[in-house]
């Protein structure tokens, strides 16, 4: 188990450590290649903040596994979904994150959306809308590090790092080295925050 971080509350329980996360990403990368018969025509779009970091890591693994040495930016981008959220008017104004699309665009590509946690499915729905503003992919697939259940929309992930049965009152915290200084997934008693 990873040593405790300042951000973690006492009631938290770590369910994935850094090596678990690394293995899960590697597995997903291979599944993506297998299912799509290679990495040609693929675009990975991460949903900021942590989805974007996961997408970059996944992209690097996909390129490596497929034996390519072109830079990650040719395969990986980010997709801001803020403006498409269905709960905008329930919260204070949210800052908009950048959307960066690989130079080749997404038209007629297979887009793999990448996020950290799949929960209600509303984020993914917003992402589907956001994608249609940017272009028309041939297909869209979904990769998540954690699927914690409790879907509110008819949405299912194509690639899952770990299925994590949770109670609705629990929260799932994904921490990544890029943002949080440590790689881990933890479950805790909810303070009302959505994960």
């Amino acid at each position: 188990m990873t040593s405790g971080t300042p951000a973690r509350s006492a009631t938290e329980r770590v369910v994935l450590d850094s090596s678990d996360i690394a293995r899960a990403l590697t597995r997903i990368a291979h599944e993506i290649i297998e299912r799509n018969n290679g990495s040609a025509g693929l675009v990975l779009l991460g949903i900021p903040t942590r989805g974007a970091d996961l997408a970059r890591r996944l992209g690097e693994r996909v390129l490596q596994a497929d034996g390519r040495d072109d830079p990650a930016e040719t395969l990986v981008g980010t997709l801001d979904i803020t403006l498409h959220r269905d709960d905008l008017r329930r919260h204070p104004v949210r800052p908009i994150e950048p959307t960066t699309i690989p130079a080749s665009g997404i038209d007629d590509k297979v887009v793999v959306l990448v996020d950290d946690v799949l929960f209600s499915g509303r984020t993914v729905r917003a992402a589907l809308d956001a994608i249609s503003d940017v272009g028309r992919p041939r297909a869209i697939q979904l990769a998540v590090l954690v699927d914690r259940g409790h879907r509110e929309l008819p949405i299912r992930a194509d690639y899952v790092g770990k299925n994590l049965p949770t109670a609705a009152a629990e929260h799932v915290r994904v921490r990544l080295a890029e943002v949080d200084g440590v790689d881990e997934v933890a479950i805790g008693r909810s303070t009302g925050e959505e994960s």
Partner: protein
Amino acid sequence: MRHLLSAKDLSREEAVAILDTAATMAATQQREIKKLPPLRGKTVVNLFFEDSTRTRISFEAAAKRLSADVINFSAKGSSVSKGESLKDTAQTLQAMGADGVIIRHPASGAPFRLATSGWIDTPVINAGDGKHQHPTQALLDAYTMRRNLRGDDAIGSDLGGVRVLVVGDVLHSRVARSNVDLLHTLGATVTLVSPPTLLPVGVERWPCAVSYDLDGAIAQGADAIMMLRVQRERMSAAGGGFFPSPQEYSRKFGLDRNRLAALGPDALVMHPGPMNRGLEISAEAADSAQAVILEQVTNGVAVRMAVLYMLLGGSEGATGGTA
């Protein structure tokens, strides 16, 4: 930030956040599908008590790109010469379900009154009031400067160290006031250049330098020069007799070929429009490669999208989260 009434009200962080959001908005406007959904179902009123087709259209485009419904209300020249109508008109529009009011008014402070008198409770955006403020103009000017002078490193940055000349009729100009306030907040140094008759008493307390000598000011070096519109009628006795003739004004304060050369090719040439070619700006300067006058117009839409999103995109009365 509940209203946008004056550039003076913006902190550096708020101003940078608006410019950053505008940059994101601008990027979406490169797409084939320019419309975004965040203000879907919201109604924005363009309440214009003064003609300004440009500003109205810019706000209208911005609101529509964010999927808001737009009601245009032009009240110029109608029964709205007595102030009570401002209250009645605004309350009428709110009763019709307006979620935000964009107001242009010939009386300085009218947007402030609208926002603070308890007449209505929607966010108010000042689209220019009398001789007071025009904050979205200042924001689009700052955005244009940042984009051209900072390039790819623009996100998150201010205008520290940028030298700006603002030239012309400062006395009657809300653009000048807004720009002095915002540019100062963003760290730029501003020099106002104007004949003494067109500077307000009290300008000495503004956070800027003042000069009566355009050639001298240009010789000091500038990264951007902003030419203000000068109304020809200001020279007549009835208009105040502020300067002897358009010819003399143009000779002493116009941006002509020689002054353009003295500025150097890297200085941005700006104008809030509409221009009086041949009076405050020569055609040569207006059409030069370093002129960003049309880009200012383009950027106006992105900046106004950012402002509309930041004021209306969240829950009612919710604040914060602008960084």
